[in-house]
């Protein structure tokens, strides 16, 4: 029995929901946090960390039962885990495979770290908006105040 088969036995297939695979090792908990999954929701969630990966050497995997990710949530994952792949599961079968890519414009997902940016002004119907300056290394620029943020800034700026 191979190591992979052992892992398959440990984490059973899910009936329906989402599998997020190829997460850079150690980033799974950050992804759960930005998706707002605390474990209190009542769904089954499996988190595998630092498992062997041909592509990445080591990787994390998250399996979430019942929950299908929205396009916005997929974009959030792209910001933190650019190598991630997302499989949508129905009846134990993968019905959709999504590769994450940081979009050119990111709206209403992350807030600007600049407290005097108009996008942080109280009582304004304004959406946070960032433009992607570069995919690798990831650099995003606030469309209002021009501040530039990198991948390491993102987890604490995700709106929940």
């Amino acid at each position: 029995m191979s190591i992979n088969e052992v892992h398959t036995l440990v984490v059973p297939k899910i009936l329906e929901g989402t599998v997020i695979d190829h997460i850079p090792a150690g980033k799974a908990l950050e992804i759960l946090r930005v998706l707002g999954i605390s474990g209190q929701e009542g769904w089954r969630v499996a988190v595998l960390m630092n498992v062997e990966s041909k592509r990445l050497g080591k990787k994390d995997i998250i399996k979430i039962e019942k929950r299908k990710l929205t396009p916005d949530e997929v974009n959030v994952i792209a910001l933190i885990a650019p190598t991630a792949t997302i499989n949508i599961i129905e009846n134990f079968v993968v019905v959709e495979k999504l590769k994450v890519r940081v979009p050119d414009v990111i709206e209403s997902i992350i807030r600007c770290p600049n407290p005097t940016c108009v996008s942080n002004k109280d009582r304004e119907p304004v959406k946070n908006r960032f433009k992607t300056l570069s995919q690798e290394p990831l650099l995003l620029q606030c469309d209002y105040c021009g501040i530039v943020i990198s991948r390491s800034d993102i987890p604490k700026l995700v709106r929940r």
Partner: protein
Amino acid sequence: MSYKFKHRDVISILDFTREDLEFLFEYADKFLNAEGKLDTLKGKVVALAFFEPSTRSRLSFEVAAKKLGADVISIIGEEATSIAKGESFADTMIMLDAYSDIIVVRHRYEGAAKYAAEIAEKPVINAGDGRQHHPTQAMIDLYTVMKLFGTIDNLTYAVLGDLRYGRAATSFIYGLTLFKPKKVYLVSPPLLRIRNDVRQILINRGLPFEEKNDIFEVIEDIDVLYVTRIQKERFPDPMEYERVKGSYIVTLNLLEKGKPHLKVLHPLPKVDEIDHKVDTSKYAAYYYQAKLGIPIRMALLTLVMGVG
């Protein structure tokens, strides 16, 4: 060429080309000696929405609009408006959009003018948004250099002062990226250096710049010394302000070490960064610069309102 200005928002000097500015400067020449009141903008309403203190920008926009025959409505500070009652900036802009033909806005939040332009259908002119942009000041500054030297290219500049929070200095430096200066020295205490996002833009645009701590290092090389005030109101930490307060002062003694034709520009207001003895010297160009605010803003209002 005037079609390039018609109904456009004026948010950042970086949205313009060298040709745009040269056209604007030529157009502004028409208003240099304009006497009395014209009827170019008769029947039009110019809204001045100044949520932050201003003397020259507001007054020169108002004078420019009135000289062109327009009516002017004003918001001066948030206290006297419904914003003080909790009304949003967006609602205020919607109202001004209905009441006027063009909105000139100044606000302490970065991006406020861009946000206003997204809300309003009428053109919006940015008269300063936080520490970020002040495009019409940059137009005036570059026009002043053009008037003084007959060119903006091939000159050596030093921009001295608060480069971190000063929007006029930043916009002037951005404006220089549209031309071919010989060299631009950015001189400031280490704490007040240009921000990383600004530095990256200057690199991307190929501006020949160098950052320095001390104006004495470069005074002999420069043709234009652009001085700015330390922007006390934008320091998040008052202790930081105390550390850099009074860290540079431009004196006649300094200027006399420079070229005989050296000119000092300042977007004003100045506090204590220029010794008052400089004011009446051959070096001081800042009062002339302030005066040129009128023809530039007359030209811009005319062109943006599509009657140029």
